[in-house]
């Protein structure tokens, strides 16, 4: 769970960095070139889209293994704590994020499905005519985020990612044994907070700028 989780965090960081190409004032030339390059990575040594598919399979496998671990943990926990456990229960540890990991995970999975249908498979067409299928990646992004409710959905999903990683990054590192002392716990928690808030801000910058017509006009 820790290893697949950190793999997915690595992907998110790369994804966010790629998105920043939206900010270049070149009407999307760099962004589109980057998008095509992802499909032709390693060409001609590697055939078209082969690298992309290997990448996708690794990510998909990570997601499934991550979900399988979560499911197993949940089943074990439910078996040992089952049903109505205490009449009165209070908590001392302030850990809202840690206790809601599974719900954050479910929101993220649903969002990722929508996100792929929208931008990769182009089944969901937000902000442009349903018959059109010739838009370049840059224009698809502009069209989608010109709708306020699309931006809102993305903000909610990124909030879920932020919450999930607020606990998740530190928890994964602790599970891998990196937490060697009370001082290192503080450092690891700080790393988790920086990554989760950084991802939220980083992912929300392009959509918000598009919505307020700072870029793309």
């Amino acid at each position: 769970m820790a290893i697949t989780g950190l793999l997915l965090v690595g992907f998110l960081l790369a994804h966010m960095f790629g998105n920043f190409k939206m900010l270049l004032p070149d009407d999307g030339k760099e962004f589109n070139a980057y998008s095509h390059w992802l499909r032709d990575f390693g060409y001609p040594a590697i055939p078209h889209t082969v690298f992309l598919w290997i990448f996708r399979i690794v990510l998909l496998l990570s997601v499934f293994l991550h979900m399988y671990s979560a499911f197993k943990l949940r089943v074990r926990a439910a078996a040992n704590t089952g049903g109505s456990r205490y009449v009165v229960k209070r908590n001392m540890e302030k850990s809202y994020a840690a206790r809601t990991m599974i719900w954050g995970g479910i929101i993220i999975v649903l969002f990722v499905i929508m996100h792929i249908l929208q931008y990769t498979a182009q089944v969901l067409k937000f902000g442009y005519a349903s018959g059109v299928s010739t838009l370049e990646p840059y224009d698809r992004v502009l069209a989608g985020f010109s709708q306020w409710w699309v931006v809102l959905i993305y903000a909610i999903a990124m909030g879920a990612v932020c919450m999930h990683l607020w606990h998740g990054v530190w928890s994964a590192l602790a599970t891998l044994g990196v937490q060697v002392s009370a001082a290192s716990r503080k450092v690891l928690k700080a790393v988790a907070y920086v990554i989760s808030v950084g991802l939220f801000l980083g992912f929300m910058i392009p959509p918000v700028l598009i919505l307020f017509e700072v870029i793309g006009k």
Partner: protein
Amino acid sequence: MKVTLRIWRQAKADAPGGMVTYPLDGVSQDMSFLEMLDLLNEHLTERGEEPVAFDHDCREGICGMCGVVINGLAHGGQHTTTCQLHMRSFADGATIDIEPWKAGAFPVIKDLVVDRSAFDRIIQAGGFISANTGSAPEAHSVPAPKRQADLAFDNATCIGCGACVAACPNGSAMLFTSAKITHLAMLPQGQPERYSRVKSMVAQHDEEGFGGCTNIGECAQVCPKGIPLESISQLNRDLIASLFKGDGKQG
């Protein structure tokens, strides 16, 4: 002082249980929590009612026998054992909810008494050092570095009360298991069996039906001995290392 107690009563393991309310007068604030329960039981016995069953032994906070969930927190959440919790921690006229530890691996025997022999079996799986008996060796022949010795002592203070399991939303006993792992892993005497120990103790932990650790941290908050979450990371480090060690293989 006067308090209202709401106590989990359960006649036996497979009987249904529920909260029963008992008003109790004449409680001194200098009484320990268990002395307050003794007082209640005296009244119940005089009235010909069944006294409330609860576990206790040393009443000095070092045996790990006592332990109940008080107002939703294991041991009352005062960083001490139930026996060392005193009635001055409660307001006059307070209502106090008392429940047993609840986990599938800790079945209730009666009222507030639970069966914690699952912990014994985890210790039996490797929480010891195999040594031939004989005369004690010269103490200075095995040097233990100061920092490691301190860590070992800190973790050895675990009394196995089970508060970590009671508080954990997953019902995990990782804090308990990791305290013993860390205690022995820090000392020279613990090295020969270090990696087989961590494997077999974690296997027994899972076998007993305890949940997995998701690093929520509730266990360390209620632990009367202050065992830190870092101990669980030590267990994980040793468990990962055991995958690459020959003596980690089961013989």
